[in-house]
């Protein structure tokens, strides 16, 4: 019983920032600027959400949504297709250089993004893949998608490899004994069984790309090119006249797709990085 009370306190402290974000977003302005906070408004309003995406008050929301969807969508589709091929190779074949490839993949996962900004910027700038101009030129688009992919491919390969290895070999072998070709067994047996893993990995790649800040900020440096995360990071302006209600509404809008997706797939993906040690 006493432990349950402790548990409730931990729950309250940990989730408070999320609660406070939503609570503030729904409050009328008087309650936000008051020195005595109102925990939950009795007069909830959606005005701040309207303001946050109003083109005259806070320009760029819809452009940012569009840019995010293009960049993240392309990153997800390309990453998953390429990563799936590599994951099949790792899960189904033994070959020279396999270990080296695995170590490289995991090594890249550990690279600090901040340490690679400068060479990436210099290289992309040389090929005109960064751009200061509106609207988003295809060059900058390609630059940011390729950069996202580089850091997401190792993750996707590693996770998908785990899902493919989770399918019992016997199922495919049985299909081949029954006269199916290797490709046929692959398409009819393996693919449907791996499909949930493919969906989960895609969603996780989506979330990571959607949240990315440092590369998107450097490569897509003009306002019309911003992704939603970058748009949000520039939202506040000076703190003296920050529109807190609108800022929290904007934060809520940015977080919603991520939270929804994350809740769907967390169980499937959570242990990818530590799988080795959890298995013991």
């Amino acid at each position, binding site marked *: 019983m006493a432990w349950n009370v402790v548990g409730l306190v931990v*729950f309250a402290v940990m989730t408070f*920032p999320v609660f406070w974000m939503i609570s503030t977003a729904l409050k009328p302005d008087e309650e936000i600027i008051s020195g005595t906070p109102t925990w939950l408004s009795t007069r909830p309003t959606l005005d701040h959400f309207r303001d946050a995406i109003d083109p005259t008050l806070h320009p760029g929301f819809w452009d940012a949504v569009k840019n995010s969807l293009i960049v993240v969508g392309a990153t997800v589709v390309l990453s998953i297709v390429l990563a799936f091929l590599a994951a099949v190779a790792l899960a189904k074949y033994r070959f020279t250089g396999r270990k080296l490839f695995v170590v490289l993949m995991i090594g890249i996962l550990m690279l600090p993004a901040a340490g*690679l900004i400068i060479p990436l910027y210099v290289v992309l700038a040389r090929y005109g893949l960064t751009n200061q101009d509106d609207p988003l030129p295809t060059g900058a688009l390609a630059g940011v998608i390729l950069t996202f992919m580089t850091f997401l491919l190792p993750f996707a390969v590693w996770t998908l490899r785990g899902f493919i290895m989770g399918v019992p070999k016997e199922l495919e072998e049985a299909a081949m004994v029954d006269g199916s070709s290797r490709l046929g067994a692959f398409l009819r047996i393996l693919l449907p069984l791996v499909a949930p893993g493919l969906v989960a990995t895609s969603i996780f790649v989506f979330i990571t790309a959607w949240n990315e800040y440092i590369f998107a900020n450097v490569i897509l440096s003009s306002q019309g090119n911003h992704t939603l995360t970058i748009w949000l990071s520039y*939202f506040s302006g000076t703190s003296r006249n920050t529109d807190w209600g609108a800022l929290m509404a904007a934060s809520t809008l940015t977080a919603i797709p991520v939270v929804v997706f994350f809740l769907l797939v967390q169980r499937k993906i959570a242990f990818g990085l530590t799988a080795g040690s959890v298995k*013991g």
Partner: protein
Amino acid sequence: MTSNQVPDTTAVAAGLDSHRARRRRRFSWARLFRASVPYLLLLPVAAVIGFVLGYPLYKLVTLSFQQYGLAELIQRKGTWIGLDNYESVLRDSIFWETLLRTVIFTAANVALTIVLGTLIALLLVRVSTWMRVLLTAGLVLVWSMPAVVAVQVFYWMTNFQNGVLSYVLAQLGFVGEQHDWYATSFSKLAMVTLLVVWGAIPFVTITVYAGLAQVPRELVEAAEIDGAGPFRVFWDVTFPILKPILLILTSLSIIWDFAVFTQAWLLISPSQIDATNYLMGVYVFVEGYAQSDFGRGAAISLLMVVMVATLSVIPVRRMARSDDV
């Protein structure tokens, strides 16, 4: 190291392969094609990574030996200046202060994350089922929050005029109303720590909780019957089983916290960032990219990448070993 004790399954598999190879058959195009299938499957991934990462990594090394600023970026040609960038960085007291600050910051963040995360995981075992469901759901919710969103919410909660953190702590008598949470370098970094630890706890808790499921119930009961208190049970029964999990969580946390960028850069806010509150990630970004001194920035970056790569040896080895099937 421990890897020597684990039978090398790759070697066993290689032995089988050579056994198969002994039954050599005639060369055929079909067989050559079959042997090259895995390489063909890996090719696209290798090409993208090689192009977008391999070349910049090579560039990082060469840039670090060059005078390379905005003028050189436009001309697309730097001037070779040997080790001057490294000399300039290593003689710069800001570099050493930043490194020391980052090491302390990392130690504090990792210790707080692992200790609090583990304590909450131990708590999860003791609470009733509905409380466990509620707490887990709350943790997953926190885990899912994008970093930039979390920064904005913390910025609002710690705001000077009417932040809720000052209000609550003033009610409890810890600080006066309108406390400035960003007054000193220490308090700025303490706020970043609060944000980073808050965001990192769920992953640690949920992973450790999964590990706790491996602790045999009978072992704990036997220890309790023998009169061991809760601390004794933790140290002698639970901890040894959790050790590999805690090791990888700690080493991953070290890597992530050492290279923190987004939270520090945005929460302290770019206008308040200076040499008194640099962390390595921020330092590299400001001195190299923001000031357009790409050559010197590359030297700092390379030093940072080498440090992180050294720290990565443990997690990379462990994860690569989990691949032995």
